[in-house]
């Protein structure tokens, strides 16, 4: 049994599971703010009831997000102890600040969201709801600053005295361009998730011919918020691709299954069958120029292919070995300035030398064959990335189409006229979650073999704990999480079927029953 594999499996399962609840929290919290804003501005009680009903579903989801997030906060220590030691000086800070600046805000105020309706003024309650939403967004920001540093480790340098990476320039960590692109992409994906959730369940109510007043108003909110968000996801997803192309060339090449470097501007492979062993893509349908334009925003910058990047890795490994040897000598000769100078000159590629540890412990004696194997190990799982990316993007374009139609129907007040549209909205319900999970796979699985790109290989990051412990906790998490998932879905379905009237204990009706279409001006 391999502890690296088990630890990775556990991290992937718990992260993917946590990420089932996060996007809905991000999106639905803002939708609640929008609805409650309308209530405060117009005084129409239906908007308060909408906030309460969707808030009930929000609460069921929020509890799961809080619960599963705890695992994530501590797993870096339990299962990735060497990672925690090696980069904790940099990576720990955004995680701690997430707790201090964001999670505290949303978690402290969320209790008042549910229990404060009769204890707070209208405006004060709206402030509380907004606080929950803002806290959630900032929470995502800090987590993505931490994650972005794993993708693009700026503002830090290796310290041979403490044998770890340390912060050199905190503002570089904070203002990491990857973090900004990822933040907008991820929260917008959350908004799409929230919008699809509201749209689909409302569509179900319209199809069932019940809760019409609430459903139509909810769909109107979801349509406009969803359309803006869906556009944002795709545009900022493109920004993510652009920033990735500057620092994670291997990830970009793997997503494209681009084995050889093509003359600029490179073509974009729409579909095809990547063949990992044969290093080629069969039946490729290509769009000329497109990849070059997306990845480099120019017609003459080259996007390097996988084979050239492997050759580059080979060079970096040899360079990193010089740093590694200087570091080994420094241990017995801590004051030697010349060794430190050598280390400093080559330390940027130290991580590449560490790749060799997978193949032999005494890496200073690595042969050309070992180095070639280590260089080859920098290629991620091309077919998985190729397809995960394409499915995610296809979902993204489908959301734009769906929300564009919804927006048009809402603007012309015909949301309830087209059963095909309503069915399509309902059928879309699982897709945002699928797209979000695929996005995680592209970003994190696509970073392999690195846990910190170019700095620390994943297999070195694990804890020295007994492998049976990890097996035990992995099985434990799977069992717990499966049980909780059943309870979560059961409760969601229960409250959706109960509907707003019975959930809130009174009939949710429009202020003017003859005019069921939503109207803000009253």
């Amino acid at each position, binding site marked *: 049994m391999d502890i690296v594999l088990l630890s990775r499996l556990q991290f992937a399962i718990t992260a993917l599971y946590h990420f089932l609840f996060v996007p809905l929290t991000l999106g639905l919290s803002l939708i609640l703010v929008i609805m409650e804003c309308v209530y405060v501005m117009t005084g129409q009680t239906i908007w308060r009831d909408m906030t309460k009903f969707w808030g009930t579903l929000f609460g069921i989801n929020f*509890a*799961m997000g*809080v*619960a*599963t*997030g*705890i695992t994530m*906060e*501590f797993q*870096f*220590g*339990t*299962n990735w*102890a*060497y990672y*925690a*030691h090696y980069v*904790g*000086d940099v990576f*720990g*800070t955004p*995680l*701690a*600040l997430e*707790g*201090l*600046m964001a*999670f*505290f*805000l949303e*978690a*402290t105020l969320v*209790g*008042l969201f*549910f*229990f404060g309706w009769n*204890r*707070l003024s209208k405006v004060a309650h709206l402030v509380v709801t907004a*606080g929950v939403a803002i806290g959630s967004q900032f929470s995502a920001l800090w987590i993505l600053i931490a994650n972005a540093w794993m993708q693009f480790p700026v503002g830090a340098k290796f*310290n041979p005295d*403490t044998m*770890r990476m*340390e912060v*050199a320039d*905190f503002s570089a960590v904070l203002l990491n361009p990857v973090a900004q692109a990822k933040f907008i992409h991820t929260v917008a994906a959350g908004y799409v998730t929230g919008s699809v959730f509201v749209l689909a369940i409302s569509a179900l109510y319209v199809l069932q011919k019940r809760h019409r007043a609430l459903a139509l108003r909810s769909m109107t909110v979801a349509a406009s918020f969803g359309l803006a968000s869906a556009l944002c996801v795709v545009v900022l997803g493109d920004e993510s691709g652009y920033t990735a192309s500057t620092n994670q060339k291997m990830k970009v090449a793997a997503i494209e299954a681009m084995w050889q470097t093509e003359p600029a501007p490179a073509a974009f492979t729409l579909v095809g069958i990547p063949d990992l062993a044969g290093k080629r893509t069969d039946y490729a349908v290509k769009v000329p120029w497109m990849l070059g334009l997306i990845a480099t925003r120019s017609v003459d910058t080259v996007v390097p292919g996988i084979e050239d990047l492997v050759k580059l890795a080979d060079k970096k490994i040899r360079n990193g070995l010089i740093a590694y040897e200087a570091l080994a000598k420094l*241990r017995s000769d801590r004051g030697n300035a010349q060794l430190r100078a050598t280390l400093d000159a080559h330390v940027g590629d130290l991580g590449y030398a560490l790749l060799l540890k997978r193949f032999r412990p005494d890496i200073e004696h690595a042969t050309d064959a070992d180095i070639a194997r280590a260089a080859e190990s920098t290629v991620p799982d091309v077919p998985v990335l190729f397809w995960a990316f394409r499915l995610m993007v296809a979902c993204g374009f489908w959301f734009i189409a769906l929300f564009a139609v919804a927006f048009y129907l809402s603007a012309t007040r015909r949301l309830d006229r087209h059963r095909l549209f309503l069915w399509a909205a309902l059928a879309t319900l699982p897709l945002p979650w699928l797209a979000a999970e695929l996005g995680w796979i592209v970003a994190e699985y696509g970073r392999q073999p690195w846990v910190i790109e170019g700095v620390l290989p994943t297999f070195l990051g694990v*804890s*020295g*704990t007994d492998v049976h*412990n990890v097996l*035990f*906790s992995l099985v*434990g998490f799977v069992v*717990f999480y499966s049980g909780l998932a059943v*309870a*979560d879905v059961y*409760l969601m379905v*229960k409250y959706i079927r109960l509907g707003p009237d019975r*959930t809130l*204990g009174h009939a949710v009706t429009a202020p003017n029953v003859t005019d069921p279409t939503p109207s803000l001006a009253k």
Partner: protein
Amino acid sequence: MSYEALRLIWWMLLGVLLIGFAVMDGFDLGSAVLMPFVARTDLERRQVINTIGPVWEGNQVWFVLGGGAIFAAWPALYAAAFSGFYLAMFAVLAALIFRPVAIVYRSKIEHPRWRAWWDWALFVTGVVPAVIFGVAVGNLFLGVPFTFDADLRFHSDITLLSLLRPFPLLVGLVSLTMLVLHGATWLSLKAEGAVGQRARRVISFAALAFIVLFDLAGLWVSITDGYKIASAIAPDGPSNPLHKLVYREPSWFANYAAHPALWLAPLLANAAALAAIVLRRRPLPAFLFSGLACAATIATAGFALFPFLLPSSSNPNTSLTVWDASSSKLTLEIMLGCVVVFLPIVLAYTAWVYRVMRGPVRTEDIARDRGAY
């Protein structure tokens, strides 16, 4: 500010965060443990849950923030403690995962078996973290077997069974009685009617048990070998636990002998628990005193252990201390700046939430309110 001062401040902040967790999340845990004993009907159980309903989420963040702050300020401790205490940590995580779900989901379905199952879950997930945190602290006094290699990779021979030694189990009971006392004063304050009265009767038992166990643990520590740094200390040196010599000395009371004022902490823990008994009919002061008992208990342990964070029994020289397990100076500075600005803000809106939710929780209100847990 010097690196030495920053490390000292962050050692104190570590204590503040642990106290914050014990005081804030402590009464949640204690109430859950007490629920089967003080609440007999379904409505009474819901009353217990609804006393913590609006605030448990914020309280639990003290735990998350504690984890994040240890990661950022004491990364070596974060790596060593959590991977070393792997299965104990897993049990705590499992409990703290189940608890939120139990609180929110329990009353959403009116099926006796569904509710009975979550009641059981609430009790167990209250007991488990309360005991394990104590067991972990107890093990710090004995030291645990671990070492670091030249790459500073952590190696340990800790197993779950090796943590369950008599002294740590005693400290686990200290922790449990402390949080049960805190939960009892909370329920006495917040639950009106029969539940509050039953909780009030628990206060004396819990406080007496706590005092006896706490003092017994103190006596036991006095005959336990402590740890002492034998080589010259470099308080501004790099965070590398391989450059010092540590030997065992007869007792952990060296700090107390050097600074007798520190005895205030254990005295306060005793006095505060006694005060909770005396004032048990005045709920708010009793609650404040049980909170003070939690704070003083943690301070007592911290003062004895300083400067050790995680002593190694198998290779004492690689023990983690305040001087060689911290983040870089820059990270400690940045984090301190953020804490100075944001912790008061956090405390302010937390206080506001408690103010808005002030007043007792009544069974009649819960029966009427469809949003109640």
